[in-house]
C-alpha cells in the first residue's frame, strides 16, 4: 500500500518547511536530536562548573579546570531528552474516496500529511511513533528517530488501524490523529478522553473532500456507502443540500468542542487545498505544545 510515491511526496512537503525544532527558542544551543531540559543531567552539552561537594564521585571532577583555582570543580552537562510524537493515520474504507478524478483521495492526502509531519519531526531529531492498531509495540511499531527511518515510519503508518490504543503513550507525549472523523461523535469522545486521561496532548487533523462539505449533487441520485450497508436514494438530491450541510457543520463543531474540552486542537483540511497549509499550522501548534 505504501510505495515510494507517498514517501517522496512527504519529503517534498517536508522540504517546504524549516526543520521542525520543537521549542527551539528555548534551546538555542542544543544539539539536534535532544532538547536540553535546562538543568543538569545526562547529556553531552556543557552546562556549568560547580564546586565539588561531599558525596560527588572523584571521577566527576574536572581536574584541568580544578587546577586553575583553589577548589575542586565538577563539570556538569545539560540533561537532554527527545520528544515523542505519536501519529495515527486513518485507513477506513471511507478514506479511500474522492469526488472527482482531479483530486487526491482522502487517504492519500492523509498519508502525505502524516508522512510530511514525520519527515519534519525526524529531521529535527524528534521521535516518531506510528500508532499501529491494538497490537501496540510490534515489529513495525515503536518510536523511531533519525531521518533515515522515514521509510520505516511510512510502512508502519500504512498499517494504522482501529481501535486506537494509547498503550504506548505516557504523560507529556504528543499525538496527532489524521482522519475524516466520520464516526459518530461519541466514538471520538471515548477515544479522546482515554488519551487525555493518560496526559497526552494532541491534535486532530480533519481531512475532508470538497464534495463532503458542499454536496454538489442534483437530480436522481442513488447514494451508496463504502461498505455493504444499504444505500440512500433521492429523487431531488439538490433539495437535500441545506439539511446535509447543517448536519456536517454540526458534526465539525462538535469535534472542535470535544477537542477543546480535553485541551486538544481540531484542524480541518480540504483535499482541494494545498497540503502545506495544514502542515504549517500543525508545525506551529506542535512548537507550542511540545516541551
Amino acid at each position, binding site marked *: 500500500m505504501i510505495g515510494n510515491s507517498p514517501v517522496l511526496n512527504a519529503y517534498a512537503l517536508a522540504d517546504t518547511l524549516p526543520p521542525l525544532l520543537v521549542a527551539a527558542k528555548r534551546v538555542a544551543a542544543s544539539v539536534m536530536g535532544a532538547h536540553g531540559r535546562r538543568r543538569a543531567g545526562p547529556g553531552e552539552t556543557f552546562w556549568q562548573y560547580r564546586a565539588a561537594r561531599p558525596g560527588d564521585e572523584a571521577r566527576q571532577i574536572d581536574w584541568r579546570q580544578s587546577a586553575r583555582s583553589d577548589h575542586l570543580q565538577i563539570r556538569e552537562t545539560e540533561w537532554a531528552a527527545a520528544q515523542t510524537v505519536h501519529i495515527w493515520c486513518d485507513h477506513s474504507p*471511507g*478514506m479511500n*474516496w474522492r469526488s472527482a478524478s482531479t483530486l487526491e483521495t*482522502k487517504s492519500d492526502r492523509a498519508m502525505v500529511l502524516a508522512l510530511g509531519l514525520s519527515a519534519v519531526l525526524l529531521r529535527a531529531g524528534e521521535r516518531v511513533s506510528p500508532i499501529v492498531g491494538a497490537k501496540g509495540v510490534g515489529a513495525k511499531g515503536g518510536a523511531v528517530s533519525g531521518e533515515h527511518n522515514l521509510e520505516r515510519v511510512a510502512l508502519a503508518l500504512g498499517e494504522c488501524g482501529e481501535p486506537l490504543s494509547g498503550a504506548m503513550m505516557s504523560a507529556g507525549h504528543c499525538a496527532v490523529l489524521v482522519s*475524516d472523523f*466520520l464516526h*459518530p461523535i461519541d466514538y471520538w469522545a471515548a477515544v479522546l478522553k482515554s488519551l487525555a486521561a493518560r496526559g497526552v496532548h494532541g491534535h486532530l487533523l480533519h481531512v475532508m*473532500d470538497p*464534495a*463532503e462539505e458542499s454536496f454538489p*449533487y442534483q*437530480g*436522481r*441520485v*442513488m*447514494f*451508496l*456507502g*463504502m461498505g455493504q*450497508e444499504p*444505500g*440512500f*436514494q*433521492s*429523487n*431531488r438530491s439538490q*433539495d*437535500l443540500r441545506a*439539511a*446535509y450541510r447543517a*448536519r*456536517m457543520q454540526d*458534526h465539525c463543531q462538535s469535534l472542535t468542542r470535544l477537542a477543546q474540552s480535553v485541551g486538544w486542537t481540531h484542524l480541518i483540511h480540504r483535499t482541494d487545498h494545498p497540503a502545506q497549509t495544514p502542515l504549517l499550522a500543525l508545525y506551529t501548534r506542535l512548537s507550542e505544545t511540545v516541551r
Partner: protein
Amino acid sequence: MIADLAFSFPWALAVLLALPGLWWLLKAVPPPPAIVRFPPLRLLMGLTTQRETPDHMPLWLLVLRALVVVALIVAAAGPVLHPDSRSAKTTGPLLIAFDDGWAAAADWQARRTWIEEKVDAAGRLGRSVYLVPTALPAPQTFGPFTAAQALTALHGWTPKPWETDRAATLKALQAIPTDASIESVWVSDGTEDGHSAAFIHALSGLGNGPAVIVGKTGSVLKPAPDGMDLSFEIDSLTSSSPTLIALDEAGRELGRTTTATLQLPLQMRNQVSRVVIEGDQSAGATVLMDERFRRRLVALVEDSSGQNPQPLLDSMTYVAKAVQPYAEIKSGSLADMMAQKPSVLVFDSTISPDQSQAVQDWIQAGGMAVRFAGNALTQNGDEPLLPVRLRAGGRTLGGVLSWAEPQQLAPFPADGPFAELPIPDETEVRSQVLAEPDLKAVTKVWARLTDGTPLVTAQPMGRGWLVLVHCAATPQWSSLPLSGLFPEMLHRLVMMSSSSSVPGAGPFNPVRVLDGLGILRPPGPDVGAIMDRTVAGPGHPPGFYGDPAAPMALNLGPGIGRLRPFVPPSGVQVSGLNRHQAEQDLRPAALLLALLLGLTELIVTSRLLRVAGLLLLTAMPLAQAETWEAGLDTRLAYVITGNAAIDRKSQVGLQALSQVLAARSTALLAAPQGVAPDSDSLPFYPLLYWPLTAGTETPTDSAVLALKRYLKRGGLIVFDRQDGGADDIAMNAALRRLNHALDLPALEPIPQDHVLTRSFYLIRTMPGRFTNGTVWVQANSAENDGVSTIVLGANDWAGAWAGQGTDASQREAALRFGINLCLYSLTGNYKADQVHMPAILERLGRQP
C-alpha cells in the same frame, strides 16, 4: 427531389403512427438515477425532501431519441431516390442513336455525359450497346459493342461541323438485326429535317422504343446577304437574343453586340477573323471573316487646287458616290493619300515622274491603282504608269463631226473581274482614249466596247494591279458613271484589291478548318480542296481555304436552311437530358443517420462529453496562448525560414538589438518572436525581420494576404539578403518571386537624407556583417505618410547584431543602424520633422 423518392416497403412507414405513443412513454419514464458512492452516508440517512417528483427527461434528449426511432423506421421502409421503373430488369441490347451534327454542339458535353452514363448503366447489367450517329460519314459498324468498347469510342467523339443526314442513317440502320429485346434511345438535336418521323419509325421497328431525348439546339449565324456591313442573321429555335462576339485571328475579343450588327472602327473591323455567338460553341454559330468582309480604304486623289467649284463636273464625285456603300473614302493630294496606305488609289490627273516611282512601289507591294482617262491624258501620250501606250488625242464617237455612233459595252470577258455583270442597255460611251496596238502580253483587257476597242485595261505589277479606264468618270465622256454598272464595276475592283484570289479561280486547299465545336484546327487528311461554289458539308468542313496569307472563308451558316423545331409524332414521349438520374438506395444513409444520432445521444449523456469538452477547452487556449502572449508586449519579430541556423541567428540578433535598445533608449522591447506569416497574427509587431535565402519560397496565399494587410496597416518589413549584395541569380529569382507575390512598391537606394539616417543616431553607413550592400527603401511612399514599409538590404544585419564575424566598431555601427531601424518602425517619420533640422545642420557643420 421529393417527387423522386419512393419506398420499397411503404407499409413499414405505418409504424410512424406509433410515434406519439413512444413519445409519451419516453416522457413518462424518468432517467435512471446516477449512482454515487458517498462516505458521509450516515449524515444523509433520514433526510427527506419536500417533493419527490423525479426530474423529467430533458426535451432535447426526447427529441433526439424520437429522431433515432424515425430514422430506423424510414430505413426499414427502404427509401429509394430516383426510382427507375422501366429499365431495371431489361437485359437486351441498348441502341443509342444520337445526332452529332453541328446543332448538337451547344450542349455536347451534357449529351455525351448522358450517353456515357446510360452506356455505363447498361454495362453493369451486362447489356451490349449499339451506337448510331446520324451525321455523315457513318462509322463502319454500329455494333454491338460491349459497354467498355462503346465508352472508348464515345470518349473522343465530337460533333461534326455539318448537318445530320438522317435519311442516309435510316438506310444504314437496316444492317442491324431486328430484335424484340432491343431498347432504343434517340438523343435528338431538336431540329426537323423531314425524316425524323421515319427515323423514329425505323427505330421502333428494331425493338422497343425509342425513347426520344431532346437537348439544346444550337443557333445558326449567317452573314447578312449584303455582306458589306458586319451585320448578321441569327436563326434560333429559342427567342432570346444572343450576344455576338467578334474575335481576331488570335482569339482576342474585338467587340460584342446584342443586336445583329457589329459597329467597329475600320482598323478593328478589318482585323475581325470570326464572329461567334456567346455561349454557343458550334460550327453553325461561327462566321469566319475573310477579305470579302473587310472594308477597303479607297483614296481619291484630288487636284492640288483643293475645293472644286463644280463638283458635278469632277470625276471624283462620281467615284466617291459609287464606292461609298462598301468602302472607306479619303480624298486629298497624292502625297497625303500615299501616307494613308490605302487599298485602292483612284486618280484621273497626270503624275509627275518623281511621284510615279512612289506609286509604282506601292503597287508592287500589293496596291491597286485605278486611273480614269481625262483631258490631261489625251494631251500627253508619254504619261508614265499606264498599262498601255495611248495614242495622242482622244476619240469622240457620235459627235457633230463624227460618223460613228456612240458605242455600247461588249459582254465582259469571263476571265476578268467583271465577269457576268449585267450590262444595262442605256450605257453608251461617247469619248475614250485609244491604246496603241501593242503586243505587251502582260496587259489584260477587262472590258471592251462593242467595236472591240478596250475600255478597261489592266497590268499586274508585282502583287498589285495598275488599271486604266479609258474614259473619264464624268457624264461628258459616257453615261457609264450614271449607270448602275459603274458602282458594280468599282465594287469588283475594290474587292480585288489586296486579295490574291481572283474570283473564279480554284481549287482552294484547306488552311484551317472548324470542327463541330467551332474551334479552328489544322485540316485532317479527310478534308478536300474546294471550288468557289462549294457548300460546306461532309468532307468540306467550314474553314479557311486558299492562300494562307489571305485565305477565303467557307461558312456553314449560309448553307443551312431555316431551322424547324422537331415535332414528335403522336405517341412518342420526349424528355430532356436532365431527367436521367441513377437510382439511389437511401437505406444506408438512413441507417447511418440513426447510428450517428444514437452515438450523439450516448456521447451527450455519458461522461464522454465532459471528457471531450474538457479536452476541447484545454486545447483551445493552448492554441491561442502564444499569440496572446506575443501581443502583451511590444516586440520585434522575424520570419521563420525553416533553416535552423538562420532562425537562431535572427533570434539572437534581434534579442541583442532589443537589449541594446533598452539600454540606450526608453524603448523597452520584449524578447523577439519568430513568426510564420501564414499562421501567426502579425499586427502586434512593429518590425518584421525577414532573412532571405535563395531557397525562399513564394509565400502561400494566406501569408500574402496577411503580409499585405500588415504592410497596409503600417508595418515595416526588413528584407535581408544576407549575402553582401552579391549578384546571385538564385537569390534574385527568389526576390523576384517574392516581389511578384507581395506586389511590393517601387524601391530606390536609400537617399542620404532619409529619416533612417537620423531617427536616433546620425549615421551615414548601414553596415551589418557586410558593409557594401545597397539599402533600398520605398521610392515614393506618399500613401503611408511618407514612411517606407519596406527596407531591403544585403548586409546580414542580424548576424552583426548577434556578434558574428565583425569587429567591435563594425558591430557598434550595425547596432546603431538597428536602433535607428527600431525607432523608425516605432516613430515613423517623426524625425523627419523640420524642427530638428537646424540642430542637425549645426552638428553636421561641426564635423569635418
